[in-house]
């Protein structure tokens, strides 16, 4: 066997310790865990989408059995049409109908900027009983430049073929009539088929701006 020559010496201190030039990202490409290092965060950012006069915002990849739950976070979602609602649906496989069967609940707390009028109410018109419509998230949103909604939605085990798929949402909103409003939305997709994709949109008009991030929860 012929000799193999390597310029290792330049990557060692005189004491025989490797210096930085000896190890790069490729060197540790086979390392999947550091047994003695505390693990990092449990949220893995998978995708970020920024709305810009968007008719829909679709997440059609990354949602599978890799994580047991997934989290969408909404940042300053601003709709183009005053009084429109921010809403979502899901679909399976590569389908694009976004019409999965949902049973859900929706209640909210609200308070006006003018003081008084604090209320807590169940929203019969925004829940679903085995419905296939888009699920309401944001309610009668305002389109003033400083208005919008932010919050999160968590979907549990979307790839399961045993259970239907629970979701839990909480969304803080600026209502078109200058109300601070927080919506508590929960329910399930009543299917045992794996859910692979989500669509977010406005009930009328476009999503003018805002950011939606998708995380896998390890």
């Amino acid at each position: 066997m012929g000799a193999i020559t390597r310029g290792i010496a330049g990557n060692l201190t005189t004491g025989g310790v490797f210096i930085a030039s000896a190890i790069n990202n490729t060197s540790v490409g086979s390392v999947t865990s550091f047994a003695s290092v505390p693990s990092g965060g449990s949220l893995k950012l998978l995708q970020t989408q920024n709305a810009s006069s968007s008719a829909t915002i679709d997440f059609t990849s990354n949602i599978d059995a890799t994580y047991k739950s997934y989290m969408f976070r909404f940042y300053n979602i601003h709709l183009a049409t005053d009084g429109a609602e921010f809403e979502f649906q899901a679909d399976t496989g590569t389908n694009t109908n976004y019409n999965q069967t949902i049973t859900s609940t929706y209640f909210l707390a609200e308070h006006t900027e003018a003081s008084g009028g604090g209320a807590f109410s169940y929203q019969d018109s925004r829940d679903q009983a085995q419905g296939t419509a888009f699920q309401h998230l944001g309610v009668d949103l305002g389109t003033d430049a400083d208005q919008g909604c932010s919050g999160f939605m968590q979907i549990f085990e979307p790839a399961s073929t045993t259970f239907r798929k629970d979701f839990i949402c909480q969304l803080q909103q600026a209502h078109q009539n200058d109300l601070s409003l927080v919506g508590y939305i929960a329910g399930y997709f009543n299917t045992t088929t794996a859910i692979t994709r989500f669509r977010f949109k406005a009930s009328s008009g476009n999503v003018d701006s805002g950011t939606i991030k998708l995380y896998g929860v390890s």
Partner: protein
Amino acid sequence: MGAITRTVANNFTTGGVILPAAINNASVASISALSQVSSGGAEVLIKTVTASSSANVSFVDGTSGVVLDNTYPVYKFEFINVHPADDRINFLMNMSADGGSNYNVTKTTNCSLTYHAETEFVSTQFEYRADLDLAQSTGEQNIGSGLGNGNDESLSGHMFLFNPSGTTHVKQFMVVTQMLEGQDMSFNSYVGGYANTTSAIDGVRFKMSSGNVDAGIIKLYGIKAS
């Protein structure tokens, strides 16, 4: 001393940079910190328990890799498709202050829930449930009421527990669960309360009011202070 032969050369580039073949998980097992690497998110997965016909699922500090002490100021439990063996039973939680020997910490709690039936055979409700709360009770806290055991029925959600190791304040907790109730209703529960003790809480247990936890995953996370 005999010669030691190592085929090191193949694990380096010609420029002397270490190749992946030279370093594996065992090589770095003693490394406890990566000072130049971002520490990742604030929420750290501590323990995952997968139930399988389990009488209960418990998390006790210092047991089976569980950390539930002053390492983190906030802990979060996540429930993923928890499925009971029996039908229309309750998913329960209690806490321990003696290393899991007893789950009987005094609690005062509140419980609200909203539900909506698939066929609307009952009207939609949002209500406070006085029958599910506790007032200075050591009993189990209901965090999922009437859970069904149909093949596709289960409960998911989360529970935050604040500063369990503190010895000054009571221990606050907040729970949100979403489930399919045994009569085919979407049930969304909000439970809050406190363990009325200044002793450290070092154990949390989840169980059904009857029968086993047939299946499901419960994860414990620590949330960093900074």
